[in-house]
């Protein structure tokens, strides 16, 4: 079932001036319930402009966004409703913490929903637990947290809104490898537990690898849309638009160029390891 539909979505910045720039150009997309979708593309390809429309922060120049079939730009009320149902975590959200305590910061969104105190409490605790932030931090100032904790507190503030669609722009940028892995795990776990949908904007091919579906943007348009194995099989096109392949897909391409017969849709280390070992065993290689 479709959760969100983008119909002919177009956004032109500084229209009618010499700086006029079409950031996104006539985009049609359907996001289904329960999916984890990766949105990839180089800087300036239109990703950030696109996601700013999903919770009505930007109004389109043309086209629209439907949430459960309703136009989110129809009225002030529908725009406000979209902001509650679609949670957006922008890049480096830790710079947007502003309340006096961690608890108050996470509770800011639910308070705006005019929920009662018991429900606000429940949501703050649950959101903090999802991101792995201990309740011992609740009375601290957000400024006293470590960088990684601040990031998680900021994300918890959006989770506490219990959005149906969670959009994150580069949530793992600047984290160490274990921190990146840990945060992705927590987000996937949250999506699963809440039966929600996630749209992940990322440059990290290891994160893109784990999505159900990838949307590749280039020059304000959707250049590719499909399962990771289908997208990563188009290595030449990805490289041509300035994107990386996951390391496994890259090595597989180099091996094919050497005449090694590997299946076309390898993109994880597990798959590549298996495929190489299968060829090696066929050649008579035996485990020692």
């Amino acid at each position, binding site marked *: 079932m479709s959760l969100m539909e983008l119909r002919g979505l177009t956004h032109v910045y500084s229209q009618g001036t010499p700086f006029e720039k079409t950031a996104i150009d006539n985009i049609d997309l359907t996001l289904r319930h329960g999916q984890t979708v990766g949105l990839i593309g*180089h*800087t*300036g390809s239109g990703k950030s402009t696109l996601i700013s429309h999903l919770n009505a922060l930007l109004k389109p120049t043309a086209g629209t966004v439907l949430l459960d079939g309703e136009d989110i730009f129809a009225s002030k009320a529908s725009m406000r409703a979209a902001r509650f149902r679609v949670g957006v975590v922008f*890049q480096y959200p830790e710079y947007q913490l502003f309340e006096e305590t961690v608890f108050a910061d996470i509770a800011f969104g639910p308070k705006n929903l005019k929920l009662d105190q018991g429900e606000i409490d429940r949501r703050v605790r649950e959101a903090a637990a999802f991101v792995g932030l201990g309740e011992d931090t609740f009375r601290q100032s957000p400024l006293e947290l*470590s*960088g*990684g904790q601040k990031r998680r507190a900021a994300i918890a503030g959006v989770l506490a809104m219990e959005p149906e669609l969670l959009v994150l722009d580069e949530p793992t*940028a*600047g*984290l*160490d*490898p*274990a*921190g*990146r892995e840990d945060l992705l795990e927590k987000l996937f776990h949250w999506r699963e537990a809440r039966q929600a949908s996630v749209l992940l904007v990322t*440059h990290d*091919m290891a994160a893109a690898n784990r999505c159900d579906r990838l949307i590749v943007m280039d020059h304000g348009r959707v250049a590719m849309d499909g399962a990771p194995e289908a997208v990563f099989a188009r290595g030449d096109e990805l490289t041509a638009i*300035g*994107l*990386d392949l*996951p*390391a*496994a897909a*890259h*090595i597989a391409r*180099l*091996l094919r160029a*050497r*005449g*090694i017969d590997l299946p076309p849709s390898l993109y994880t*280390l597990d798959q*590549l*390891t298996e495929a*190489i*070992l299968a*060829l*090696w065993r066929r*050649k008579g*290689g*035996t*485990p*020692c």
Partner: protein
Amino acid sequence: MDPVIRIKNISYTYPDAPGPALNDVSLDIWPGTFVAVLGSNGSGKSTLAKHLNAILLPAAGKVLVDGMDTIDEGSLLPIRRRVGMVFQNPDNQIVANVVEDDVAFAPENLGVEPGEIRRRVDAALRQVGMYELRLHAPHLLSGGQKQRVAIAGILAMDPQVLVLDEPTAMLDPQGRREVIDTVEALCRDRGITVVLITHHMDEAARADRIVVMDKGRVVMDGAPREIFPQAEALRALRLDVPDTTELLRRLNAAGMRLPADALTAEDCAALIGEALG
């Protein structure tokens, strides 16, 4: 030959912090080498970087830049000329409205004469591949281009050492490649010493030497080929190994006998191709 930077037993604790950010660190940085510094968030990497050009001064121990002690106020200017820093956020480092004015900013402040400034700015912009865009407005550039302008601004001071603190964290893959290719070329072709702080293992794999930090100490120090085969030790430090290293490790665990130290995808494919060929 003397090290261009000599770090002797330095310790540093931030005000109100429960423990030291640097704890008895010693390190010699040799001229013309490319050194990558790895470590988890909070391991002390950035604190160490800020000691290399006297942004921070050690509470104990000494940092000598080209023989000058960073604690000596009279040496501050010559130290800053020798050691330039590039930070993570490309938008915080640009001051002028035109690319070439931005690059000229530091030499102008140093009182370099105009003809020499012109020469240095042009040379620096060529070295980072931004000469063609010298009259553009910096805010309209991509992240990778902005970081290359920031690097050019430092090159125009004619430094010996370039310190980069996660310069690619906010960039897309193409921007990352542009910046790392530029930095590597400055080291290989111009002999500039590079200290690169990064969370990306594939960037560190291109260095001559990797220094791994944990809890304010240096815990590993060696060539990438020596460091990356130690996958378990690295993972225990919240780090990782390049995918090439991991692939070879898995293939060898299943019985193939491949040299485990290939770091580039090309070398890795060549080894596997030979074994299957």
